[in-house]
């Protein structure tokens, strides 16, 4: 049986790991390599690392950091941040990263998705869409450059377009729920699941393992990603990297998917 993926998402800012709320108020939570070592020990399903400075500062991805992360990581690694050319994507893959994530560049220059997919294979191309619910109606706008620019384009249109152009996976990141820890936007997740056939990963809002179970219950085999949940512990948000054990994950997935068996 293919299992749903439970994926920590780590944000890099000025060389350290941080966690935001609503894409703002960054709080330092530790050293990236140290975090990778802990997630190795905990046998995490996958890891997503996003450098939130590179695109905004218009600088190259930090290849040295990426190489160090890839060498240390004993689980699949997806890197995003600052990638806007095919050459950059290829260089990152050659460093031993399994998947590259593109976001602002994919929205601004969608043909880039196709160019990268043709060269490195679509299984390694992840498109990240940062979204905010519209004030009226049931649609969501896609934002770029760390939620600074509203493209005013519907996430469902862009998701379908990214799939058509060659994306191998979509990460749908809720700006509204970033750091909120009150549960995923299940309506959004379900509609994305119905919109595309490629694997999807939902990010933003997870505050407990119950939230992850609820997402899997509603979407089936899906990627459930979270930041705060895996770096904070307790109501005072003390920094403590944590992750469910293999047995806990198996049980969670069994409970969530039993309706399918």
């Amino acid at each position, binding site marked *: 049986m*293919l299992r749903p993926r439970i994926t920590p998402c780590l944000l890099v800012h000025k060389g350290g790991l941080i966690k935001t709320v609503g894409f703002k108020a960054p709080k330092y939570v530790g050293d990236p390599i140290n975090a990778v070592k802990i997630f190795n020990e905990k*046998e995490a399903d996958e890891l997503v690392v996003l450098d939130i400075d590179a695109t905004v500062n218009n600088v190259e991805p930090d290849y040295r950091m990426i*190489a160090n992360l890839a060498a240390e990581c004993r689980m*699949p690694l997806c890197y995003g941040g600052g990638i806007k050319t095919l050459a950059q994507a290829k260089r990152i893959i*050659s460093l031993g990263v399994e998947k590259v994530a593109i976001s602002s560049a994919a929205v601004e220059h969608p043909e880039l998705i196709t160019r990268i997919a043709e*060269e490195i294979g679509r299984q390694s191309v992840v498109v990240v869409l940062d979204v905010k619910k519209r004030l009226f109606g049931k649609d969501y706008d896609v934002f770029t450059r760390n939620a600074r620019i509203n493209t005013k384009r519907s996430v469902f249109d862009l998701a379908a377009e990214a799939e058509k152009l060659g994306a191998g996976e979509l990460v749908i990141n809720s700006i509204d729920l970033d750091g909120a820890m009150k549960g995923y936007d299940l309506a959004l997740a379900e509609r994305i699941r119905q919109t595309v056939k490629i694997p999807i990963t939902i990010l933003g809002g997870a505050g407990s393992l119950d939230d992850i179970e609820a997402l899997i219950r509603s979407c089936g*085999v899906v990627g459930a990603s979270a930041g705060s949940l895996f770096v904070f512990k307790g109501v005072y948000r003390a920094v403590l990297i944590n992750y469910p054990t293999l047995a806990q994950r198996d049980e969670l997935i069994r409970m969530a998917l039993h309706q399918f068996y």
Partner: protein
Amino acid sequence: MIHVIDYGLGNVQAFLTMFKWLGFEATRAKTAVDLTGASKIILPGVGAFDHAIELLGQSGMRPTLETLVLQDKVPVLGICVGMQILASSSDEGRLMGLGWVPGKVCAFRANEQSASLPLPHMGWNDVQPKLGATLFAGLESDARFYFLHSYYFECDVPSHVAAVASYGLDFSCAVSAGNVHGVQFHPEKSHHFGTQLLKNFAEL
């Protein structure tokens, strides 16, 4: 010494790190000369079939590899696309594969059962080893590995199938033909399950 083929594809460093951690000597091979003294070979790979075959050709290592594997019977383990290029051909490309394990690489999307599932096949899936498959010795019955692919290996010779996984259809996720082995999943990214498999290969 375990030689990890570096032809520009796949996570060479991850294998070197893992073998070092397991206590085996491993080195990177970028040219034919580097292959001297290889007692085990890892053939990694990601991306498209034709691209992998082309890059292997351009590396200049292919003739030496063929001598080592086909004549000297040095054990080789292909990973992901490194496994797929062991086949004779692929639906993904026009070029011939290495042909070390007779078979063909097929597209999930062309199969009725798997075409209705999300593709690529991405994530942790169960693996059922065939009885006595040495690569899987000592692994728990709930062993799972990380997959990331859109094409799968179809063996011409049933006895070459070392393990199957299920995604719509049952496909060969591991092959063993004499000294030639291949796995579709990523053992270097599959925690203690993958570590055990790589240890098994290193101890062959």
